[in-house]
């Protein structure tokens, strides 16, 4: 009995199999396959395709077809489809764990020796095999070519200025090995703008001096309007810019339009390596159409229902407007969480020119007082409709590194305590209007530089100004323009600036904590210390505070760590220092990003995180699995 049921089930399964669709051709390609223009699916997929597991509870396998419309603001924004496509050697999944994607697997020995295994039978979008020869071409002819890479290997491959040893083991495996650990290697491969270790060699050789001869290569280049062959190679070769329709790709959609254009059309990659649980090749959606519009018009056009999916160039203050159009134009607005450590943070410039102010900025009591003097609750209610979370500038709750005390440290509104702190600094003299005086007699007037880009900044600063007034500190906002703003901060002309908080508020211990240590000039609280590290002690100033030095030390120990426990330790200590030292003054976190989704577009998560790295914006949610429910249209 049981056996016959089993047999019946088996028969039924076999009978159903074609209906479930294992190996079913996407209808839009069926004609080409029948006419012999394309090989059948089995020959287009790698022998072991990447099977997309169901991502969420409400995730469903989809139907083929349809055209996704979206808007971007500039021709060069077309690179966003490399970000959204998110076809990477290894990539983050939705829970931000690294998983092999283009690769079949990775062997990692102590973060020092990485062996990458390709999928046998994997092909570029033009049908040519994707093999280790493409890695070899990149290593020998691009990365080590003086004309193409005059500045040497990419930063992510260097450990203490030393590159890896590169070996091609066979047609589908390569090995990179360092003497010391390189924890940033896999993360760089998974980045939204990834480290590309391969090039479509078969295509690029026609531009390369080594393969066609310098003279001929240069002649081709001048005919194409470039200065020399290296310029043309660079231009043809940019896998991230995505502006060369002839360049083979591994992404789910191929760009078919060369800029300049106001409309870009992307079509499905018939050789894409991912399949759905039923073995059907992704992406579900056949075409993507991108119209280029001025960025200020994008919210208006989105509200008018001109798109199927849009998040870029929509801001939180467009939310109510977008909501209005929901019914009429058949879409819904979802709010995703941005991964910023703080929607807006104040950066006291520890490198400010003025010695009096520099002394104050470097005194932790002063920074703590400023932080205590901000009424975050009021700001949240007034500017963010109470949707934000009052917090200092630290990691978000989603991160495994989150600790509640990082959020609350020195971030309550406490005027009395703040005044006590300021008094203890000896700033007790005041002028007639109640503004404290600096030791040299000048009134305490904090000038906050803004990049002048949003009214949100000015609104928040207005409220901060009111509450700082109660500390006896006058505050003025000085809006300028982005480049001027940066220059002023970098050169120490600005004493305080306002900008978004931590870029990555959702780190896992494997991700780099470089942002927390003075490692880059664009860190607005200590640009010169960052420059010092960035330029290998050749520029800037060495960090003068012991806490900043400790942060550098912790960052180095994270880099050298061999176990997760060590990495967690380094991370947590760094976050602790930040919470305690208030190097940046966060205001409100859980910033929200409106995402407009056509009602019949399926598999777009309702609440996602909207983040560049990690996240690749839509990338980790796999837009290749989004699909249109044709029956539900209208």
């Amino acid at each position, binding site marked *: 009995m049981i056996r016959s049921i089993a047999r019946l089930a088996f028969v039924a399964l076999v009978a159903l199999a074609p209906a479930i669709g294992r190996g079913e051709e996407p209808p839009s390609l069926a004609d080409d396959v029948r006419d012999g223009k394309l090989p059948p699916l089995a020959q287009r997929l790698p022998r072991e395709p990447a099977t997309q597991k169901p991502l969420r509870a409400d995730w469903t396998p989809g139907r083929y077809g349809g055209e996704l419309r979206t808007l971007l603001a*500039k*021709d*060069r924004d077309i690179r966003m489809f490399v970000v959204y496509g998110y076809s990477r050697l290894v990539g983050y999944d939705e829970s931000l764990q690294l998983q092999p994607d283009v690769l079949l697997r990775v062997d990692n020995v102590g973060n020092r020796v990485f062996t990458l295994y390709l999928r046998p039978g994997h092909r570029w979008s033009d049908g040519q095999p994707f093999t280790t020869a493409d890695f070899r071409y990149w290593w020998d002819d691009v990365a080590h070519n003086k004309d193409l*890479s*005059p*500045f*040497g290997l*990419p*930063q992510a491959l260097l450990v203490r200025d030393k590159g890896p040893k590169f070996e091609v083991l066979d047609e589908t495996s390569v090995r990179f090995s360092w003497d010391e650990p390189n924890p940033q290697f896999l993360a760089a491969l998974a*980045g*939204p*703008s990834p480290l590309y270790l391969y090039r479509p060699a078969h295509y690029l050789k026609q531009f390369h001096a080594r393969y066609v001869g310098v003279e001929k290569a240069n002649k081709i280049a001048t005919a194409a*309007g470039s*200065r020399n062959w290296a*310029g043309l190679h*660079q*231009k043809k070769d940019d896998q991230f*810019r995505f*502006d060369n329709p002839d360049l083979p790709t591994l992404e789910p959609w191929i760009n078919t*339009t060369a*800029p*300049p*254009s*106001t*409309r870009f*059309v992307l079509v499905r990659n018939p050789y894409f390596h991912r399949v759905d649980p039923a073995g059907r090749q992704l992406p579900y959606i056949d075409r993507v*159409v991108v*119209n*280029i*519009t*001025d960025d200020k*018009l994008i919210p*208006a*056009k989105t509200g*008018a229902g*001109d798109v199927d999916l849009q998040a870029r160039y929509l801001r939180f203050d467009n939310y109510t407007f977008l909501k209005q159009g929901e019914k009429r134009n058949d879409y819904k607005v979802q709010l995703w969480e941005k991964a*910023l450590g703080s929607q807006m943070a104040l950066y006291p410039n520890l490198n400010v020119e003025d010695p009096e102010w520099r002394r104050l900025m470097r005194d932790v009591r002063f920074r703590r007082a400023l932080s205590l003097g901000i009424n975050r609750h009021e700001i949240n209610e007034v500017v963010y409709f109470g949707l934000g979370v009052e917090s200092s500038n630290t990691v978000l709750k989603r991160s495994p590194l989150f600790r509640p005390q990082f959020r609350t440290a020195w971030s309550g509104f406490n005027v009395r305590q703040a005044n006590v702190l300021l008094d203890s600094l000896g700033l007790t003299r005041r002028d007639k209007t109640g503004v404290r005086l600096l030791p040299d007699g000048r009134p305490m007037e904090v000038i906050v530089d803004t*990049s002048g*880009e949003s009214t949100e900044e000015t609104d928040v600063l207005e409220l901060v100004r009111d509450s700082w007034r109660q500390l006896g500190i006058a505050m003025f906002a000085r809006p300028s*323009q*982005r*480049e*001027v703003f*940066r*220059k002023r901060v970098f050169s120490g002309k600005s004493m305080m600036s306002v900008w*978004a908080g931590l*870029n990555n508020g959702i780190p896992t211990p494997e991700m780099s904590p470089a942002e927390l240590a003075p490692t880059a000039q*664009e860190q607005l609280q200590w640009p010169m210390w960052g420059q010092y590290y960035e330029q290998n002690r050749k520029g800037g100033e060495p960090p003068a505070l012991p806490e900043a030095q400790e942060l550098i030390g912790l960052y180095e120990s994270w880099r050298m760590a061999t176990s997760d426990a060590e990495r967690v330790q380094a991370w947590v200590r760094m976050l602790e220092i930040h919470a305690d030292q208030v190097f940046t003054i966060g205001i409100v976190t859980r910033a929200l990003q409106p995402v407009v989704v056509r009602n019949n577009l399926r598999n777009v998560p309702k609440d996602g995180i909207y*983040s*560049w*790295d990690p996240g690749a914006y839509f990338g980790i949610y796999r837009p290749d699995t989004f699909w249109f429910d044709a029956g539900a249209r209208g």
Partner: protein
Amino acid sequence: MMGRYIVKRVLLMIPTLIAISVIVFTIIQLPPGNYLESYIAELQAQGESVDPQRIAFLREYYGLDKPLHEQYLRWAGGMLVGDFGYSFEFNMPVSRVVGDRMLLTIIVSFVTIIFTWAIAFPIGIYSATHQYSWGDYGLSFLGFLGIAVPNFMLALVMMYVANVFFGTSIGGLMAPEYIDKPWSWDKVQSVLAHSWIPVVVIGTSGTAGMIRRLRANLLDELQKQYVVTARAKGLPPRKALYKYPLRMALNFFISDIGSLLPSIISGAEITAVVLSLPTTGPMLLNALKSQDMYLAGSFLMFLAVMIVIGVLISDLALVALDPRIRLSGGVAR
């Protein structure tokens, strides 16, 4: 006489254009930073990272590490031999970037100008000959509205109305399916079908302005003695209007040609941005914003050349059309 004058004017153009090129270059360089810096800043504002190696490569490749005067000489020298430099933003020579857009811009501007003339002339003449009549008041009222309402505002209102009441989105110059297709009869038809909205929007203020000027100039002439005499002598009213007064009143129109030429190729930047027209206006604006200096510079130079030529043409035309205008004082006929 005339020949020498033209040669002199053409020779004068050379120092003029050199001076303009220096000014253009300086102004483009005035804001702090350069293309790469604003590019980096923009990426970082979006939370994206930048590969320092690539930036270093670009800085060297584009010659942005060279001193300013060297960059200028390279650019100005290139223009003499028809090389307009390299657009950083598009990563290709400027001439290729501008290509197709120039054609569309010329079409839109040309149609707009025809539209402006076709409407403005009859109305202007009517208002002048029927001064202080209801028709004159009504048309003048509309004309003032046309001058007072900013073009981009009109464009926004039209877009809103079209969307909310007709459910269509305007903007663009052709149906989307033609955008990346080669030119064909269908495409031309599509362009014509789509171009009336920008033409109306861009043309309104020009039309209104022209009506006012034509009316004023014509009124001046109509009150002169010779017109009165002509009428008294029984010249038919049409002839008494067209033969002399209208021709006299057209001087302003001819001197307008000087500014018309550049506007044909730059065409209503702000309106084009609002309507997202694939014309050169938005491109110029973006190039200036992102400090894509060769694209912006070459474009402005092109406009300058157009102005200089336009002014010359209108001066010569004036001399030819109006015998009262002399080449210079003291030269006897």
